[in-house]
């Protein structure tokens, strides 16, 4: 590790709608900042190199890997975690669908899965099962075998489309 990684960087951002100011090590990942400094434990570190999706966050409207982005890069950004989405209530139907369909077992992948699924659902149409599978193929789940997750996302896509049409 070079000294540059230890240099401190001042950042200002909003996290789950609240303003945050912090001085972070230049080498600190966003997911670690959220977990260690803000106590937001919903996003999980798992593969730590952008493969598994357990740390998926919403940054400026995009689904982003919290382990591939530095906290310093989030200066000025708008960050949402599963805690914020929950408090906001915007994902309540998706979360309920996950519970009802048992689309989670150990729950470690679930916060990332919710954020990634919302990224797809935000497009507004009703995706095919294949499209849902494709979209979530960057989010590993080792417990469920995925089918229940696909079912849950599909049911919410249909319900939201129906509501919009009405």
């Amino acid at each position, binding site marked *: 590790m070079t000294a540059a990684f230890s240099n401190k960087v001042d950042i200002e951002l909003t996290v789950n709608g609240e303003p945050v100011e912090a001085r972070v090590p230049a080498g600190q990942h966003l997911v670690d900042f959220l977990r260690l400094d803000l106590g937001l*434990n919903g996003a*999980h570190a798992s593969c730590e190199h952008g493969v598994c999706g357990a740390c998926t966050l919403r940054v400026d409207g995009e689904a982003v890997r919290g382990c591939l982005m530095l906290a310093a890069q989030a200066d000025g950004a708008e960050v949402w975690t599963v805690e914020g989405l929950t408090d906001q209530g915007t994902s309540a139907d998706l979360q309920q669908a996950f519970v009802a369909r048992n689309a989670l077992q150990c729950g470690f992948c679930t916060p990332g899965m*919710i954020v990634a699924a919302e990224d797809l659902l935000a497009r507004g149409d009703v995706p095919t099962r294949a499209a849902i599978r494709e979209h979530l193929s960057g989010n590993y789940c080792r417990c469920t*075998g*995925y089918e229940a997750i696909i079912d849950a996302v599909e049911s919410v896509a249909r319900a939201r489309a129906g509501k919009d049409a009405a």
Partner: protein
Amino acid sequence: MTIQFGNPDRPNSYIGKTVPRPNAEKLVQGRGRYVDDIVLPRMVHVAFVRSPVAHARISGLDAEAAKAVKGVLRVFTGADLADVCTPWVAVLAHLKGLKSPPQHAMAVDRACWVGEPVAAVVGTTRAAAEEGAALVDVDYDPLPVVTDTMTALDDDTPVIHPDLGDNLAFRRLHEEGDVDAAMEAAHKVVSARFRTARHTGVTLEPRSILVDWNPAEEQLTAYHATQAPHMMQTVFAEHLGIPEGRVRVVCGDVGGSYGIKVHVYPDEMATAAIAKVLARPVKFIADRLESFTTDIHARDHEIEARIAVDAEGKILAIDVDDWTGIGPYSVYPRTSAIEGNQVVNLCGGPYDFANYRARTTVVFQNKTPTCQYRAVGHPIAVAITEGLVDMAAAAIGMDPVEIRRRNMYADDAYPVTSPAKMKFEGLSHHASMDRLMELMDYDALRADQEAARKQGKHRGIGIASFIELTNPSPFMYGIGGARISAQDGCTVRMDPDGSVVALSGVTEQGQGTEAMLSQIVAESVGVTPDKVRIITGDTQVTPYGGGTWASRGAGIGGEAALQAGRALRGSILEVAAAMLQSDEGRLDIRDGQVVDADTGETRMPLEELGRIVYFRGDTLPKGLPRELVQTRHFITMDYPFAFTNGVQASYLEVDTDTGVVTLLKHWCVEDCGRIINPQLVDEQIRGGIVQGLGGALFEEIHYDEDGQLLNGSMADYLVPMAAEMPDMIVGHVETPTAESELGAKGAGEAGTAGAPAAVMNAINDALRPLGAEVTEMPFTPERILRALGKIND
């Protein structure tokens, strides 16, 4: 009173219904509490220096540069910790001849696999500890490396542990009947060589532990992502020299286990030892490379096998020679001989035949240790058996379903003892096969396959029958001397508001233990499931138990909960009868109300009974028992294991130009006895199937000849992802075990047991017209193209 399981309209009928998991809501909101989420005052972090070579003498260690890193507090060597933590030897008395050398929390003078912990660096932050670990300078004098299983016992192969004499850890030969004579006289003998790859669990939550030693209380508290808190309590106590009663293991939310988190890991023991030395909380969270090099591996088997059949397809004999390499140490305390032993126990499992010979040879090598991982031995035994049966069917021109029907134990044959000397209480192979045929519409699928073939598409149907070992008795570990409980307990308590708390020795790893227990307690006491809170995973709080392994939670822990709930119901009714001046037998509890048993008329809500018992006990008759806490334990006695059975089918397409396999659909019919929660069972089956599909198509740990692990990342070790997986149809037959009132057997491993064999048989069904066959997993495009002769170099 017995529960009328056959009547879905009975009062409090929660057993057998899908009810939501009480702990799912917090997990979807990101409010779970995994070990890494816990922060304690004065907590420090440990990072490990790990051997970069597979076998070497450690001749020197310089930690000065590490100690100079800002935030690094201390560096420990293996010798430092050997003074605090005694070594262990992972053998079991009933696995005769099993040997293994003493293993320390960290290598003392010799490293035996890439990833073995050699030194530990403690820092105020994980970043500081990791930075320090990178600066520890260790001198390694290389020693000869043993990697190949099949030559591990050759005379010219170096012996890894000279004190043990050779590289043989364990060998078992089982013989029944006269295999050679049966082979000699058979109509057809088919032989094959199978290989199952080295896998690992890839739990999304890495292994995690936070240990606090409080010298003022002389108590060690370990917050541990584990499947077996009580087992770990014993292990910490024994090897750290602490009375068992002064060790508390707390297991909160766990991010995936699958058998990975039921073992004793050197780095976790080291973390506990360091906490004891430093007298402050120490956290260790494995990173992903550490997960690949130090989580147990499994399933690295090479097998030569033969089957003999007569002209009618009747199996005459099965002969299996199984070899596996387990790394340099047998893993504590369950040992690494169990998997091979299971292969011997399980081959030929569904079939009624007479002549059986199976040998397993378990050898040491300089790779990551292997041990029990979901469906231990089953995927191997099922692949061997079902592969051979399909090959025999092809050899005599018989349909693969027909040959199975001709050999499976009749559904009314039980109890029976198999040629492997496994005792089966009651299985349903034929009923399960019938159900599978309906679900998949076998004949229509064959027609589709035929039509596809005319269009040049190579589709295949693969069938795999299987048995699964669940609900283990002490015959699994206890008789061998391991302090691993096969019994489990449950304490059920009614609080003043009429709500019920149940404390159970089985644990929640995400499979739905808490939901399952809440249903059983709700039904057995007579309240709604939302009035039941479940507490698991705290050795200082729950009854002693075994935890989660070998598909035992529902069958063992569930029965204990049923009996405890029933006992609490009795206690409540005894008080209620006194209060209502009625007879206990004329009262019942339904939906949280004491009611008249005959009319259902409400007599008193439970909160009123609670108010009287807890706050106005003076109004009750003197001497009236008012014990609103009841504990019961359960252990199986009649059978060593409760076997379940099932059958899976895979339909897939092989692209013969690219070698890529596309899974079109998958079916599983299984019989886990009484189903407590249909949705949870189905999802266990589905999740298990996908883990099996990973083994069939993707998962393989690669080593080079120097013992270097070549694919230690999630980008390189492929596990199933959403896009490649099929939809899965799950069906059931229910043959409850008579060992318990609940009648539940396990369901957690059936999917993994049968899926690889079903895929293998489906691929070979697709390739058979082309004269190709694959038996080495995973069935990668390269292996399929080689089988087709399209790659020859």
